[in-house]
């Protein structure tokens, strides 16, 4: 049982910016030379470069999305698409440059958590600088490496699966990512292997106008299970920044994959992420997705339930403060009989912030006896903030069980009064009610992440209540 309810956190812990010397970076803007330079930096096979170049053409041809959040301020010519702070991925903590270690120490990251986690990958700028995987997993054949190395080291797996779940042509930002991606994680879990402790990557953006275009590919072979965890905090910048990641997840027959993210981008970041999973027979995919910070987030973790008995569980929270728009949600495509999905979305808006839940559940004619459960709750902390719900259900057969609940509420005055009657200040009482509102999410997190999330929320709440 934890006893950490008193949170004395100063914003300094999260709002800083260390000067970093880059070993290599591409000039601003995007063209074929930039793409070729990135591929060269990765020492990449030609087949991957060809995919990048094809994606670059798709990116140029595709229109910006006309729905969701306002993206008109993004200037693609002002972005640096690749920067590399150190020579190569590190496999031991002692080799990580001191400057970078200091940054991690200020974030309170890895040392203390190391024994808790099976492996730690930290992405600093566009490159993973520190990677570690406990020996026993290596012996079991589990692969956990920098995605930048994967095409060279595991060409068969990458060729077979890369771009199959999120094709470059899926949307403009998926095309962009496919053209310029660097970093991210590559994970392969062999048949029947259960990875008991979560695999974790901790990363952050740390230079003005540097986009993060990481690419993550996770393949869980038949009967295996794995939990991947990523969290990030980011310093504040004056210029707009772009984060356009792609995550592809393949859950083969009978496997179980959980992907947990907490993102707290600085408030000028456009966070546009395409996350999608394919679940085969009896596989279970769980997205646990927390969105704080950023200027605009558009993110709709998706699961395609491709074969009978597959299960999707999507749990997300979003927090929007002044000038922020969190447009988040979930997508589930039921393509086979006896598939089940559960979507729980919680959002909080304050100081004129805006949250939108955008969800799609589609059940095909073949997906008999599918079960669908959607619940979205929004909490508005003041009259200036806004929340919208855009749920879409396309049910193409009558043998489907659907449950849908949605609510928008204000902080309950009676609950506030009750807590204050026990000596809690209005700010403490409000924070506690909010933490309670999000508890369904935080209880799914490892303890230190739950504590970190509560701190971030406390930080976001600072100054909002007298």
């Amino acid at each position, binding site marked *: *049982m*934890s*006893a950490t*309810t*008193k949170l004395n956190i100063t914003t300094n812990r999260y709002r800083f910016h260390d000067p970093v010397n880059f070993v290599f970076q591409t000039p601003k803007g995007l063209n074929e030379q930039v793409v070729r330079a990135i591929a060269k930096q990765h020492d990449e096979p030609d087949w991957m470069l060809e995919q990048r170049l094809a994606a670059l053409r798709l990116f140029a041809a595709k229109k910006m999305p006309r729905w969701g959040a306002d993206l008109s301020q993004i200037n693609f010519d002002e972005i640096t698409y690749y920067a590399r702070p150190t020579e190569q991925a590190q496999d031991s903590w002692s080799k990580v440059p001191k400057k970078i270690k200091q940054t991690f120490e200020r974030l309170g990251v890895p040392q203390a958590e190391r024994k808790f986690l099976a492996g730690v990958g930290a992405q600093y700028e566009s490159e993973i600088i520190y990677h570690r995987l406990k020996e026993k997993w290596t012996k079991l054949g589990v692969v956990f490496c920098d995605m930048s190395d994967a095409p060279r080291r595991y060409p068969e797996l990458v060729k077979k699966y890369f771009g199959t779940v999120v094709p470059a042509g899926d949307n403009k930002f998926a095309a962009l990512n496919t053209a310029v991606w660097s970093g991210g994680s590559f994970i392969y879990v062999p048949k029947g292997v259960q990875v008991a402790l979560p695999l974790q990557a901790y990363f952050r953006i740390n230079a003005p106008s540097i986009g993060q275009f990481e690419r993550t590919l996770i393949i869980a072979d038949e009967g295996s299970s794995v939990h991947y965890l990523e969290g990030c905090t980011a310093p504040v910048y004056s210029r707009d920044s772009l984060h356009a990641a792609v995550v592809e997840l393949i859950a083969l027959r009978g496997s179980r994959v959980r992907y947990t993210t907490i993102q707290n981008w600085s408030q000028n970041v456009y966070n546009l992420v395409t996350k999608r999973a394919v679940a085969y027979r009896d596989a279970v995919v769980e997205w646990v997705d927390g969105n704080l910070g950023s200027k605009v987030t558009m993110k709709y973790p998706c699961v395609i339930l491709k074969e009978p008995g597959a299960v999707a569980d999507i749990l997300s929270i979003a927090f929007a403060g002044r000038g922020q728009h969190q447009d988040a949600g979930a997508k589930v495509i039921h393509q086979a009989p006896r598939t089940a999905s559960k979507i729980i979305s919680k959002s909080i808006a304050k100081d004129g912030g805006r949250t939108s839940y955008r969800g799609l559940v589609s059940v095909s004619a073949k997906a008999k006896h599918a079960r669908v459960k959607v619940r979205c709750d929004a909490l508005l902390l003041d009259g200036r903030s806004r929340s919208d719900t855009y749920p879409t259900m396309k049910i193409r057969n009558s043998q489907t069980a659907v449950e849908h609940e949605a609510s928008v509420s204000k902080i*309950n*005055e*009676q*609950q506030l*009064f*009750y*807590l*204050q*009657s*026990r*000596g*809690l*200040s*209005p700010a*403490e*009482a409000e924070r*506690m*009610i909010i*933490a*309670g*509102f*999000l*508890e*369904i999410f935080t209880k799914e997190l490892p303890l230190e992440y739950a504590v970190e999330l509560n701190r971030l929320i406390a930080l976001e709440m600072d100054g909002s209540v007298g």
Partner: protein
Amino acid sequence: MPILSIKNLHAGLPGKPILNGVTLTVPAGKIVALMGPNGSGKSTLAQLLMGQPDYRVTKGTVRWGSKDMLKLKNWERARAGLFLAFQYPYEVPGVNFYEFLLAAYQSVNGKQGSQAEFERRLKRSLRELRLDAKFLERGLNEGFSGGEKKKAEILQLRVLQPRLAILDETDSGLDIDALRLISRNVRSLRSPAISFLVITHYQRLLTYLKPDIVHVMVGGKIVASGGSALVKRLEKTGYEALK
């Protein structure tokens, strides 16, 4: 000096007077009972004393020791040592009972409150109320039965150790065993350091508690005052006789 002195208090909701000149004193270390029929204003008084912001005072004074209590915010009243055991405790979903209680303890005790002392009080209170430690892992009042909610209020009372505890119909909705258990708990807390204002319809609870002073409220006013004998008399005549 009495811990609480209410003089000629007129109050209610906007446009709806409920209390029409209440005068009542709680001396330090005493148990004061406030009886009366439904709708007489007892719970309004309890909520108002705790600082419920919906109620407006139009006339009269409320003193906490020598201080003007109406100037204190409700959490300041709690920190000064006032406790209200709610008639209908609110559910706060997802808020862990233990963490809530620790936060409350720290708010009320400030720097003087050690966690060891908190744990000691908590352990003892769980035992006295026959509650399992697992109870604390639940959400605050979330899905608690009526009896569990009342026990949870008394648990908070025991851990926070206020100077004045108001029990607002703590006996309603309790079976006879739970009533006895809760009464025994409250009685065992009796000391010169704590006073009680016990609000109830029935004499059952008062038989266990043996109040020092009994007031009867009808129509937002105190209409009769006395000792334990008044409780017995009311049992025979009912409130009607006092109107």
